[in-house]
């Protein structure tokens, strides 16, 4: 049982707003990058946090979808103004969303969730699978000293190095690889069919790095559950701290519906915790995988 009186547990920095689409473009197979204008959110959001997004006024699709921060966009004065998210078209909402044009409106609420903890200095390895690279770009920018996040801006120790290990089904699903390269992060790719990068699993890329170069300071991970479980096990084996960002389905994003629960270790074994308010980022050692 987590004490719910703890203030950081609540979305006290969140706001709800109707926002205009600035850009909504395909960046990979079934994958779109959406930009909307919302300075209040852009100023507050942290890497690893998410927002809920819904089509304005619609009752079908009814429920919002959680989308992780991909990046913020600065105005001419260097002030955060726009917010970029990335999504995979696979359901009712995203099928409708990908048809929307600049100027059309969306309902959003956020920023939500805890975001990535500010990790220790050293070599940060980010391991992503599927659309799970999304929350990594802002973190890479922050850890490489390229961008500050939060209001007030949070202070983080810079990473000596950032490596992204990014796996997808095939080359055409890889999205935003150039964005990561531009940050100066080292990018290693893997595909299930071998159409680009390593032919195999992203966890094999992680093992290779750890075997070749010794332990990293920290691993962060986001992607399909079996992959996150495997990455967590590798991190534990090498005794490296690992933050896992869960992609649990959510209905509200703000802790009121109890949909998005994950098994988290406690004295009695495990208890369900809400990914939206107690996560989505958990220390891998806390999680109990099925």
């Amino acid at each position: 049982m987590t004490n719910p009186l703890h203030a950081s547990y609540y979305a006290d920095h969140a706001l709800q707003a109707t926002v205009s689409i600035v850009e909504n473009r395909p960046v990979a197979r079934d994958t779109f990058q959406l930009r909307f204008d919302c300075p209040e959110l852009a100023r507050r959001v942290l890497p690893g946090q998410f927002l809920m997004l819904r089509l304005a006024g619609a009752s079908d699709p009814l429920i919002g979808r959680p989308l992780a921060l991909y990046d913020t966009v600065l105005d001419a004065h260097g002030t955060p103004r726009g917010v970029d998210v990335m999504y995979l078209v696979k359901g009712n909402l995203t099928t409708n969303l990908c048809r929307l044009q600049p100027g059309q409106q969306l309902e959003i609420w956020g920023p939500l969730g805890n975001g990535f903890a500010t990790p220790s200095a050293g070599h940060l390895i980010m391991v992503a699978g599927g659309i799970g690279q999304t929350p990594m770009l802002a973190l890479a920018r922050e850890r490489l000293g390229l961008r500050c996040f939060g209001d007030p801006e949070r202070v983080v120790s810079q990473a000596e190095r950032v490596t992204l290990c990014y796996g997808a089904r095939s080359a055409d699903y890889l999205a935003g690889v150039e964005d990561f390269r531009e940050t100066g992060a080292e990018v290693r790719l893997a595909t299930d069919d071998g159409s680009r990068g390593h032919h195999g699993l992203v966890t094999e890329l992680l093992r290779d790095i750890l075997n070749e170069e010794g332990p990293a300071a920290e691993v962060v991970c986001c992607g399909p559950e079996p992959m996150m479980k495997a990455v967590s096990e590798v991190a534990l084996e090498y005794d490296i701290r690992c933050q896992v960002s869960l992609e649990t389905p959510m209905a509200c994003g703000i802790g009121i519906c109890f949909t998005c629960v994950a098994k988290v270790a406690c004295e009695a074994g495990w208890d369900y915790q809400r990914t939206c308010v107690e996560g989505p980022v958990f220390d891998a050692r806390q999680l109990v995988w099925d």
Partner: protein
Amino acid sequence: MSDHIATAQIDLGVSLGRLQLANPILVASGTFGYAREMEPFVDLGQLGGILPKTITLAPRPGNAPWRTVETASGLLNSIGLDNDGLDAFVAHHLPYLRALPAPVIVSIAGRSETEFVTLAEQLEQHGGVAAVELNISCPNVTGGVDYGTDPNRCGGVVQAVRNACSLPILAKLTPNVSRIADIAKAAADGGADALTLINTVLGMAVDWRGRRPLLGNVMGGLSGPAIKPIALRCVHQVAQAVDVPLVGVGGISNIDDVMEFIVAGASAVQIGTANYFDPSVSGKILKALPMAVQESGASRLSDIIGSLDITSADVASDSTDNR
């Protein structure tokens, strides 16, 4: 005419038996967390009443994921009354809730009459609770609907709580019965101050390719705009059968929905699933309420409760299931 009444002078107060509310806009149990979560989105003190998530005597982990599935204009859930139990509620949530200016109506669910009574008694002792709502209609727990589908058991549990504590009692009923008016009469006879209509409608979602149910608990309760016509029908039927005040709930997401329930016979309403997809909705509805009452021509909201005129409807082709 209505334009003589300033919206500021509209009286929004309603009575639910022994419970007086400043306005009829409540939020439904299980859709508002423990209220603290909603502070960024809603001025909590303005609400007519707040119903935190149902509590049980002992902690319950709830059902296995998936716990919700979206369907056409609705949401199926099988959360399973995930809660940390009475003691944790009293320790962690009640101090915050008690300090809010809005009345707090605590939703309770027991596996037996004794558990319902214990929950109600203990809440009364701790103070700061305006009323209890008996959740005798949750479709997602074993035995959860037993008290809500059998008139004798329903009347019995309401009466037992009424005898044991002095808090006003709301009984929340399930639509998953053939004759909801019979259950409603039993709850009213047992001493309920008001009846909350309706809990979720039992439903299911299937992944045919995977040959599997989408909910971890196979079946679940449907909520959201999809069930509003069912909820309105229940309010209408029960309003004709009993004299106790009704609290309408089911698919309410805007001011027109609220007014439909009031006119159909509800003295108050609860906003439920809409809190999920529009967290600030309850405040928006509250703001729009005086204008809507003004538009109706009344100066008091209570004057239009149950003002539905069915004489103009073609009653010969009555298609209700009240046979």
